[in-house]
């Protein structure tokens, strides 16, 4: 939608600039033409100059040569009419034959504002009478009849501006009317393109000037929707398949585990046999964890396990997970130490308690699984202004820089889009990452200051209750 208004703004801008440019061009052009067509010397001035120059001498009237030459050059004739007798008392040589030699008062009034026999005439006042210059026929327009209302001329500048403004508005309206159809067709198309990018289905009416484009967009949307639907079906089928297999494996595994547990505790068996049974129990538990992990990982990956986020106290959650582990009394070789500051008793986050507990359990279980000879596990929670940091680390065998780099930066084989036979790490950490991503947080894997492995979960904090 932004692009449409931008487009309209740009079109209108260009149009306004064009109008201003045309006005300037026109005004300049007419100004030049006007200046070029205005005689350098006004015929009224010429008449007055001639009247002033004409002198009455003892021998008669005398016109200086330079004035006479100017008149001749322009093919202008001149007569002097006496004030009292209204007879021509002096004339130039080139006065046409049909020019009267005697004038009435009305003749004088006529020649002053108009013509004498088609010759445009101009008058100048001389002490000896009225000097009349006759210019060649068709050399000047004399607006003998034209006259304007006073206000019309006085308001001319204002009127010109109003006319220009009205013209501009009219042009704009014509433009808008002409283009509204085009803009009307563009709007649904831009909306459609925006919806396409957000993945929603698009159906644009296929009419107007851009019908072809609308057809193509509708078709693209159809293809995208079909592909998305197929992908969804595929993902659901995959997650359901994993869930189905997990379900089918659970009952037989229950029997394996339970019988092995009975054998492990049987007093009738030898120590070696009991150890073998214990190994079966241990491996069955691993299989059980794997099934659960696989199921959860696939569900989180395909968004089939929506997170229910609520305001929770992170410290309380971490404390409960640790206590659950300690209460299980799995092995004395894995003591867990609480390292959070005593002063920090509440750190609110938006969390899905069950899944966050699962993530923290996975990290503690990882420390146990990867340190056969035992290790101390350290758990802590701290906070800054914006985040809550949950840290699970150990003093066990740890990992190399290279391994840590892989864990931090390489996608897990389960969500890797290239073929790979390399199983970089178990599902435990993948699930942790998926869960923390769902909490808008991040997971940082590093060396621990205690010498082993460290995983920090950073989750946005909620400021108050």
């Amino acid at each position: 939608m932004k692009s449409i208004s931008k487009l309209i703004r740009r079109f209108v801008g260009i149009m306004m600039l064009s109008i201003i440019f045309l006005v300037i061009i026109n005004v300049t052009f007419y100004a030049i033409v006007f200046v070029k067509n205005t005689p350098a010397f006004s015929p009224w001035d010429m008449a007055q100059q001639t009247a002033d120059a004409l002198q009455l001498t003892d021998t008669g009237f005398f016109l200086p040569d330079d004035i006479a030459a100017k008149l001749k050059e322009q093919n202008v004739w001149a007569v002097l009419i006496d004030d009292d007798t209204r007879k021509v008392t002096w004339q130039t040589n080139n006065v046409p034959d049909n020019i009267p030699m005697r004038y009435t008062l009305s003749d004088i009034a006529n020649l002053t504002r108009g013509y004498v026999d088609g010759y445009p005439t101009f008058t100048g006042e001389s002490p000896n009478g009225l000097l009349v210059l006759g210019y060649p026929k068709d050399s000047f327009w004399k607006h003998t009849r034209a006259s304007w209302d006073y206000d019309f001329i006085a308001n001319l500048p204002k009127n010109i501006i109003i006319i220009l403004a009205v013209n501009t508005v009219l042009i704009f309206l014509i433009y808008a009317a002409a283009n509204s159809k085009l803009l009307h067709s563009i709007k649904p198309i831009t909306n459609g393109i925006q919806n396409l990018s957000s993945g929603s289905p698009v159906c644009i009416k296929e009419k107007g000037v851009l019908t072809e484009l609308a057809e193509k967009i509708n078709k693209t949307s159809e293809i995208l929707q079909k592909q998305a639907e197929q992908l969804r079906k595929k993902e659901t089928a995959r997650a359901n398949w994993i869930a189905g297999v997990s379900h089918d494996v659970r009952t037989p595994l229950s029997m394996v585990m339970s019988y092995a547990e009975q054998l492990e505790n049987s007093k009738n068996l030898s120590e070696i046999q009991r150890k073998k049974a214990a190994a079966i129990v241990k491996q069955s538990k691993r299989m059980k964890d794997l099934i659960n992990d696989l199921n959860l990982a696939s569900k989180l990956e395909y968004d089939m396990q929506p997170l229910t986020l609520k305001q929770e106290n992170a410290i309380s959650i971490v404390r409960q997970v640790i206590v659950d582990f300690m209460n299980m009394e799995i092995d004395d070789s894995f003591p867990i130490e609480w390292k959070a500051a005593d002063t920090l008793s509440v750190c609110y986050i938006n969390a899905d308690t069950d899944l966050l507990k699962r993530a923290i359990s996975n990290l503690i279980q990882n420390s146990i699984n990867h340190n056969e000879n035992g290790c101390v596990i350290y758990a802590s929670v701290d906070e800054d202004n914006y985040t809550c940091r949950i840290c699970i680390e150990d003093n066990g065998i740890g990992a190399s820089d290279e391994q840590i780099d892989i864990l931090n930066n390489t996608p897990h084989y389960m969500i890797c889009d290239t073929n790979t036979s390399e199983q970089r790490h178990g599902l435990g950490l993948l699930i942790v990452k998926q869960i923390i991503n769902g909490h808008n947080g991040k997971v940082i894997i590093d060396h621990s200051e205690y010498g082993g492995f460290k995983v920090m979960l950073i989750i946005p904090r909620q400021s108050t209750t």
Partner: protein
Amino acid sequence: MNDEYLLNKRILLVDDEPELLNIVFSVLTEYGFQNVKTAKSVKEALEEAEKFRPELAILDVMLPDGNGFDLMEQLKKNGSYPVLFLTARGEDDDKFKGFGLGADDYMIKPFSSKELLFRVMAILRRCYKDENPLVQLHNSRIDFSRAEVLKNGEHIPLTAKEHDLLSVLYRNAGRIVTIDALCEAAWGDNPFGYENSLMAHIRRIREKIELNPSQPVSLVTIKGLGYKLIVEGK
């Protein structure tokens, strides 16, 4: 903690897999349960329940002639007793459905015998209280019915909060109870910020149950995490 009386409770096991039925049966009987009956279908379970009058039912969800959820509803019509689901259906929806219908616990296969026993005992303890709740500690004895402690022949009364806290600790005897769980037991749903009050109550409880409160042997602190009540004979 004396749980002997719970071993007399009647338990009904329902699963269509005979092998698994045998396993759970032997796990329970080897632990000491004397009254355990099994059934392989909904029909069998209803008949057995009629005669046996169980006090706990352990049900599978998928049965040949129906499902465990419907079975639970029918069983509960004839008697109010706890139900634990033991099933391979690990979906959250199934779990929620089970709990929604009134199940007391939900375990997903495969399970460890130890965990099953622990959960069964926890349900029984919750539902069938000891008629004589006298708890023997190292240096004293708690009488929950009278809300008092007997130490060196002296009867020391417990306050309501001390009673609540000791009850939670006793129900989880031998296990750590988090600071948050204790605060919740004493102060309800929004228990954060009561840690100092909790410490004060724990100190007073120790003065009542311990010989030397500064070196406790029955109510021990697990630094930063919680407390653990150690009961004699447990």
